[in-house]
């Protein structure tokens, strides 16, 4: 007996088919229909499974390698507070406010807050040091304008110094200009979770990714034109849409979204989904940069970490999710408040807050803090840092791995440098623009000579118009800025050979002169066309005399000068007579490096812009160190520094004092052939600054270094040194002072009409009295 098993489905189909009217070919038609039906089922099942597997693979792959694209951050250098530091409380408050720290009257303060009552400052962890203990909460005591003490509040010990948290100056973005501060789920306050869930997806903890009830409610509301508080999409669906899908509105996308949400719910816990969501959502703009995640938004709008926001603030952020620009509290505070109150109402509905709390929170005003929309506070400097980073790290890491780059830049000085350059260029334009019909350029670099730290750097008039960085990339003739090298080479001879000794009192003839050199004739001329006759080397440098310097260079030896030029960092300086007057090309960066030798007692310091690179967890990837090399004897360096102070007191740099800069300082003007470049280089014991002005295409600027570059230097240095202690240059051992007669170079006597103190390297000082006016008048026969 044949047993046939027929499934329930087949029986049902047969029953249906039986009802279809059957013609002569009925049986055949039935089979075709049946076949077609099965084919459809198979096709749908095939594509359905493929669709599902495709969605699952996308979600799985993404979750496996889920990393936020976090741009690296470049930080300015942090000021160091120390006992005895001249600083007014107002300056510290200003700094902390720039860090988005909040002032509170409460004496117990949390991280990122300070109390002005006792000046109790709690710093956020900033990982400048790997050791977290290096960042304790501190209490800073002021004695009017000085820091009296810094107390570690944890150990109650006094600290000799404390490095503040650095300010971020820019981010290194890839294609996405997004900024976010990642927060773990456990660190989100319950209020923000409740606020977001109640307004966006109040059944979030109960559905499986898709909320059917919410979908029907949304459809019903849509059909009945009712205003809806909640959309149909769940938090999971929104997350899926943000991660994987385009904003296109189609059934296909909706199905894909729902499927992926369902898959995601199977892979992650509710807490994990919410953590991803709260870190992902877009919450407005900070200039060109988008603000993503409640962590970053909380810092932007409320100047505090999300852990510390209150219920109305949480409701404000939750309300912004739907339309961050419409509910932007800066632009539309009214709409933002209405929306916030709506969120508070939903929180009351869900039981997250009581009715009384709702009434109280509704009264809270919208308080948001202003922010700096500039996303790059030192663009030329940032560009140098980026170039340096790209030499060691791949682009992907820089743009996405949230590296923290701690630099040497002083943000206050940087801002002063930018103002000085803008004001200086305006003054030059007033004089030159009508004649040249083009705008001049200028650049500035300021460094701390002891450490080589770049404190300020402006590469040109406008970074947005030209990214060409004139500090490092431009090669220009240094002109008279190179002259101190000639004099240094002259003084160094004493330590090498004593056949001819040069001192600042050595006499040289500044008269028209022709040099025959390698079958060529060279006739250096003074810029002003004036010649001064017999002068001391000090006067020759102070007044930047070309002929006197050129003659000295020939006496010293071009090989020696060219070698010293190379050692100082001027690059490939060839031993031609014209090098004495700086007729070769260098960058302002190289000039700054070279001058560290004079400022540092003969020791060259390499310029540094990056102090440290740390990964996202704060672990140090690399740290730079001070690189020094002894180039000159300290006595030579000191003599040059002292002669350069004469440049400012009596020479071509005299306008420095006239313009009001009266600290101990040394400097040198520089003007090249046909006035194509105008330079000023100057330094105090703790800050060195180089300013160049000119045209990129070498059009003569027709202004001297003292006219074009010096005022920029003064403007910058007056502000930049305002908070630095006024120090004198330290004299090394082996330098002696004698009173000399500058007209003869001999020791001055009471009969000399003119006398002045002069410095000598010990052993080179004159031993005989001035012969011309000296007491031994019979010496005129000697």
């Amino acid at each position: 007996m044949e047993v046939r098993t027929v499934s329930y489905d087949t029986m049902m189909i047969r029953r249906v088919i039986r009802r279809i009217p059957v013609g002569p070919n009925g049986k055949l038609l039935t089979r075709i229909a049946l076949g077609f039906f099965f084919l459809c089922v198979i096709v749908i099942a095939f594509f359905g499974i493929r669709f599902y597997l495709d969605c699952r693979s996308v979600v799985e792959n993404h979750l496996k390698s889920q990393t936020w694209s976090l741009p690296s951050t470049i930080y300015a250098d942090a000021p160091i507070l120390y006992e005895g530091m001249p600083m007014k409380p107002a300056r510290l408050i200003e700094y902390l406010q720039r860090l988005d720290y909040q002032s509170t009257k409460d004496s117990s303060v949390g991280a990122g807050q300070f109390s002005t009552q006792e000046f109790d400052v709690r710093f956020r962890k900033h990982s400048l040091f790997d050791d977290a203990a290096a960042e304790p909460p501190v209490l800073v005591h002021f004695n009017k304008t000085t820091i009296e003490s810094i107390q570690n509040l944890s150990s109650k010990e006094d600290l000799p110094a404390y490095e503040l948290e650095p300010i971020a100056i820019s981010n290194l973005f890839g294609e996405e200009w997004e900024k976010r501060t990642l927060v773990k789920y456990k660190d989100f306050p319950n209020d923000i979770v409740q606020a977001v869930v109640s307004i966006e997806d109040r059944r979030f903890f109960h559905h499986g990714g898709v909320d059917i009830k919410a979908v029907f409610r949304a459809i019903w509301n849509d059909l009945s034109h009712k205003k809806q508080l909640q959309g149909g999409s769940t938090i999971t669906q929104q997350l899926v849409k943000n991660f994987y899908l385009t904003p296109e509105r189609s059934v296909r996308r909706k199905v894909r979204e729902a499927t992926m949400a369902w898959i995601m719910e199977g892979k992650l816990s509710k807490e994990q989904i919410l953590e991803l969501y709260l870190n992902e959502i877009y919450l407005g703009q900070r200039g060109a940069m988008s603000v993503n995640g409640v962590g970053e938004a909380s810092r932007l709008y409320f100047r505090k970490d999300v852990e510390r926001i209150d219920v109305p603030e949480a409701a404000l952020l939750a309300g912004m999710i739907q339309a961050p620009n419409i509910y932007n509290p800066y632009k539309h505070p009214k709409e933002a408040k209405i929306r916030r109150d709506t969120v508070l109402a939903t929180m009351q509905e869900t039981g997250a807050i009581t009715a009384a709390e709702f009434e109280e929170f509704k009264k809270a005003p919208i308080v948001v803090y202003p922010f700096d929309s500039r996303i790059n506070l030192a663009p030329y400097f940032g560009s140098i840092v980026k170039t340096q980073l790209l030499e060691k790290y791949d682009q992907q890491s820089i743009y996405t791995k949230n590296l923290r780059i701690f630099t040497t830049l002083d943000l206050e000085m940087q801002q002063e440098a930018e103002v000085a350059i803008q004001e200086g260029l305006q003054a030059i334009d007033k004089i030159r623009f009508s004649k040249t019909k083009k705008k001049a350029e200028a650049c500035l670099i300021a460094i701390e000579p002891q450490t080589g730290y770049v404190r300020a750097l402006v590469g040109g008039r406008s970074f947005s118009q030209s990214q060409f960085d004139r500090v490092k990339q431009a090669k220009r003739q240094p002109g008279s800025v190179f002259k101190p090298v000639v004099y240094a080479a002259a003084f160094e001879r004493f330590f090498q050979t004593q056949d001819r000794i040069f001192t600042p009192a050595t006499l040289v003839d500044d008269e028209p002169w022709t040099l025959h050199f390698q079958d060529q004739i060279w006739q250096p001329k003074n810029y002003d066309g004036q010649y001064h006759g017999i002068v001391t080397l000090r006067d020759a440098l102070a007044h930047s005399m070309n002929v006197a310097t050129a003659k000295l260079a020939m006496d010293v030896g071009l090989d020696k000068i060219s070698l010293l030029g190379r050692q100082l960092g001027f690059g490939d300086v060839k031993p031609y007579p014209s090098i004495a007057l700086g007729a070769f090309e260098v960058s302002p960066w190289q000039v700054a490096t070279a001058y560290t030798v004079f400022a540092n007692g003969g020791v060259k310091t390499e310029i540094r812009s990056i102090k440290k690179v740390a990964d996202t967890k704060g672990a140090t990837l690399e740290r730079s160190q001070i690189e020094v090399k002894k180039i000159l004897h300290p006595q030579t360096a000191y003599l040059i520094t002292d002669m350069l102070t004469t440049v400012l007191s009596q020479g071509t740099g005299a306008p420095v004092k006239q313009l009001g800069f009266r600290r101990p300082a040394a400097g040198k003007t520089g003007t090249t052939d046909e006035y194509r470049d105008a330079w000023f280089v100057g330094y105090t014991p703790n800050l060195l600054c180089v300013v160049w002005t000119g045209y990129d295409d070498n059009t003569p600027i027709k202004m001297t270094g003292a006219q074009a570059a010096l005022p920029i230097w003064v403007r910058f240095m007056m502000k930049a040194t305002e908070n630095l202690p006024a120090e004198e240059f330290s004299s090394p051992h082996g330098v002696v002072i004698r009173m000399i007669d500058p007209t003869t170079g001999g020791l001055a006597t009471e009969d000399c009409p003119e006398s002045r103190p002069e410095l000598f390297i010990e052993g080179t000082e004159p031993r005989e009295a001035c012969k011309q006016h000296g007491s031994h008048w019979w010496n005129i026969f000697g």
Partner: protein
Amino acid sequence: MKRTLTIFLLVLITFAGCSKKKHAAIEPPVQEPPSSVEPQPASPQPQPAQPTTPPKRTLEAPAPKKRAPSPGDTSAIKLVESGVKQMNAGNLDQAEQIFEQALRVSPNNGRPYYYLGVLSAKQKQYERASGFLSQAEVHLHDDPFWMSQILLQEGLILKAQNQKDAAIQKFREAVSTDPTNTYAQSELAALTKK
């Protein structure tokens, strides 16, 4: 007659002056008497034949400026002490950061330079060490203790670079600058013994 006598006297005095000058030129140029710190007349010996115009003194030079204390000195010294502890514990990286901080707090204080020099020498970065010690010398040369320590370190660097004679010279200078520098004494003794 009176006029002739005057001319004769003048010629006599002139020759006397020339002969004195030749004597002075024989003296070694570098060896100055201790009084040379304060400038003295070019010819120290009295001129007997100057009846009418007595020798005039050369002018006295002002004293060199002494470094004024910096507001950051106290903190810098405390930081240096803490850096030395780290260095002695072998935490060279940490020590270097602290010395750098001290240097920034008081850039004209010599001690951070000195210890950065010592630390660089420990890391066998001799060129760097010499640079820092040279800077330390600029700021600490008035203090025999520190100056002797700097010379000792410079000697140790030279010794490490097998420059025996130069090292001996530095150790000698260190001992003469501060005779209580026993380390320099023992280094000198050890090198000269060999």
